[in-house]
C-alpha cells in the first residue's frame, strides 16, 4: 500500500507582508518550516505504516529548492521518500493551479492508494488544495477527518466531527483525505533518523518531467484575483457590568434581556 502525504512549507514567522502588486503573501526571504498541520497527516501515515508491513509513505511538495528541507524533516519522522515539484513556471500559483500540478505529479507517481493532506496551511488558511486534487483525480474525498482507519481490503473509514453532528464516512481507495490536528500528536524526528533521512530518495520533478497544460500553471493559470487584503476592524461590543449579589445580578440580567425582548 502506498500513501502519499502532500505537505507545504510556510513562513516561520507570523510577520508576513503582502505583495503590493499581486496582493498575495510575500514569502520572499522568509525562512520556512513545514506547515504544522501537515505533520498530523504524516503522523497518520506513519501510524498506518507502523501497523502493517506493506505500507510505503511518500511525501510530495511544490515549491523552490529549499522546500526539500521540509521533505527531509518528514523523512526523518519516518517517511520513505520525497518528491519536490520545483520550477519557475509553477510560481505564483493559487490553490487551483497548485492542485493541478500536484494532481499531475500524483498521476505520474501512479500507485498511491491514499493521499493525505493536513487540514489547511497556516499561511493562507484555505484548506482547498486537498479537495481540488481529489476532483482532478476523480477520487473520493473526506475532509477534516478526526479519525481514520483502514477497513477491509480496499477502503477507509473516517469520522468527521461537525458542529452539531458526527459523520462516519467510508471511501473506496484510492481516496483523498484531509485530517484535523486533533487526530494525533506528531512524533519528533530522532537525531539518528535525521541523519538517515539524507540516505532516502528525494526526487525533484521540473516542468518538463510532468505532463502539463501550460495555460493552467503559475500566476497565469490562477483564476484567483486578490483585490485587497486587510485586517478587519475589531467589532466594538457594548459591555454592561452587573453589580450586587449573584441573585441580584441574575435578576438584573433577566430584566435586561426581557427589555431587549431577547427572552
Amino acid at each position, binding site marked *: 500500500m502506498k500513501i502519499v502525504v502532500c505537505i507545504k512549507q510556510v513562513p516561520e514567522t507570523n510577520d508576513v507582508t503582502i505583495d503590493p502588486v499581486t496582493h498575495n503573501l510575500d514569502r520572499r526571504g522568509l525562512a520556512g518550516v513545514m506547515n504544522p498541520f501537515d505533520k498530523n497527516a504524516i503522523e497518520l501515515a506513519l501510524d498506518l505504516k507502523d501497523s502493517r508491513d506493506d505500507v510505503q509513505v511518500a511525501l510530495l511538495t511544490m515549491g523552490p529548492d529549499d522546500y526539500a528541507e521540509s521533505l527531509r524533516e518528514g523523512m526523518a519522522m519516518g517517511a520513505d521518500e520525497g518528491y519536490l515539484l520545483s520550477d519557475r513556471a509553477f510560481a505564483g500559483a493559487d490553490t487551483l493551479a497548485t492542485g493541478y500540478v500536484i494532481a499531475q505529479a500524483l498521476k505520474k507517481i501512479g500507485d498511491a492508494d491514499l493521499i493525505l493532506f493536513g487540514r489547511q496551511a497556516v499561511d493562507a488558511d484555505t484548506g482547498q488544495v486537498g479537495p481540488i486534487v481529489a476532483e482532478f483525480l476523480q477520487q473520493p474525498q473526506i475532509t477534516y477527518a478526526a479519525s481514520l482507519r483502514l477497513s477491509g481490503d480496499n477502503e477507509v473509514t473516517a469520522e468527521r466531527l461537525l458542529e452539531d453532528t458526527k459523520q462516519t464516512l467510508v471511501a473506496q481507495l484510492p481516496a483523498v483525505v484531509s485530517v484535523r490536528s486533533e487526530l494525533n500528536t506528531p512524533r*519528533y524526528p530522532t537525531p*539518528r533518523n*535525521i*541523519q538517515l533521512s539524507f540516505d532516502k530518495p528525494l526526487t525533484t520533478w521540473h516542468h518538463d518531467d510532468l505532463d502539463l497544460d501550460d495555460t493552467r500553471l503559475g500566476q497565469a493559470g490562477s483564476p484567483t484575483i486578490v483585490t485587497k487584503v486587510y485586517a478587519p476592524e475589531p467589532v466594538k461590543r457594548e459591555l454592561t457590568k452587573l453589580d450586587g449579589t449573584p441573585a441580584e445580578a441574575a435578576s438584573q440580567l433577566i430584566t435586561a434581556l426581557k427589555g431587549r425582548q431577547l427572552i
Partner: protein
Amino acid sequence: MPSTTAAAEKLLLQMVDDYTEREISPEDMPMDAAGDFPAGFIQKLTDTGFLGMMLPQEFGGAGFGPEVTAAALNHIARGNASTAVTLEGHFKTIDQILKFGTPALQQQLLPSANDRIFAFSMTEASGGSNPMGIGSTATREGDHWVLNGDKIMITNGGLAQVYCVLVKTAPHELSVFVVDQDMPGFSFGKREDFIGLRGTPVGEIVMDHIIVDNDHLLGKVGDGGRIGDSAHDDARILMGAVLTGIMEHELKIATDYAKERKAGDQPLTALQVTHRKVADIAMRKETTKLLFEKAAQLKAAGQPYSEEAAMAKAHGSRAAVAAGDDTLQILAGYGYSREYPVEHLIRDARAMEIAEGTVEKMRSAIATAEFNK
C-alpha cells in the same frame, strides 16, 4: 544548497528547539521545586533518541560531531540546564569509551548507550580535584580485577546504569574501569541534596568486590589520570554550552521585563543603569559562546582543546552567576522570588564553578598552559 551535514545539523537543532519548547521548558520550574526529573521525562528523552546524538552510527547512534552536539546542549539549556547537564555527563563518558575502550568493549557496551545513561565517577569523600587522594582500588586476581570503594557526587549517579570509575591499581597509579549496575557487588548510596541543577541526580555508588574482566579497563593500567583529564576536557566544552544557554535564558528574562516594567514614567529600557546590566549580560553570554564554540571546533578538527575548554567553563560559570545576579537586580523583588526562575538559574550556574574541576583549578590549568608556550 547547503551540504548534507549542514542540512542535518540545521534539522537537528530545529528538532531540539521544538522538543525543548514543548517538553523541557514547561518542566523547568517544577523540576527545581521537586528536586528530580518528572516521571517519564528521561524515558521520553531516550525514546526520542537524545542519548545517541553523538554516538557513532555504527553503534546505532546519530553520529553528530562535537560542534553541533555542544550547540544542541546549548539550546536545551535555554529551557532547562539540568536536562543539558545530564546529557553532558552521558556524552563525556561515551567519549572516553570511544577514545580509550578496546573495539570489543565498544561493541559490547556502546549500542546500549542509546537506551542507558552512562556516567563518569572520579570524586570520593577524600577529594574531588585531587585524584591521587582517592581510596577506591582495583586489584588484579588472575585474569580479572576486583574493585572496591565508594565514589560520590557522580553526575547522573543513581540514574545511570553504566559507570566509568577512577580507581588506584597501585599506590601512585590510577586506572579507569567500566562497571555496570547489574554486576554483583554494585550498589547505590546516598543522593546529594544540592542547591542547583536539581533535576539532575548526583549520587554515590558503592563497589563491594566487583569482579570485572581485563577488557573493562579503559586504556592501559596507569592511564587513569590521562583519561580523567580527557573526560574533564570534553565535559568543560559542553558545560560552556550549557552556561551559554543559562545566560541566554537570563538575558531573555531581563530584556522582556525591562521592556514591560516602568520606573516612574520611564520604561526600564530608558535607564542607563539597565543598559549597563543588559549589555554586561549580553557580553558575558557572547564571550562564553565564542569560547565553547572555539573549543568544540578544535576538538572536531583533532587539535588540542584542553585550555580552551577550561576557559569556556571557568569564564562561563562565573559569567552566568554574575549575569543571573544582574538579571535578579533588574527584576528586583520579583527576581528574588521563587515564583520566577532567576534565582534558580543562579543556583544552577553556581554548580559549574565547582563541577568538572573548580574554577581555581581551571585557572591553574590555563596559566600552566600559557607558561608552557
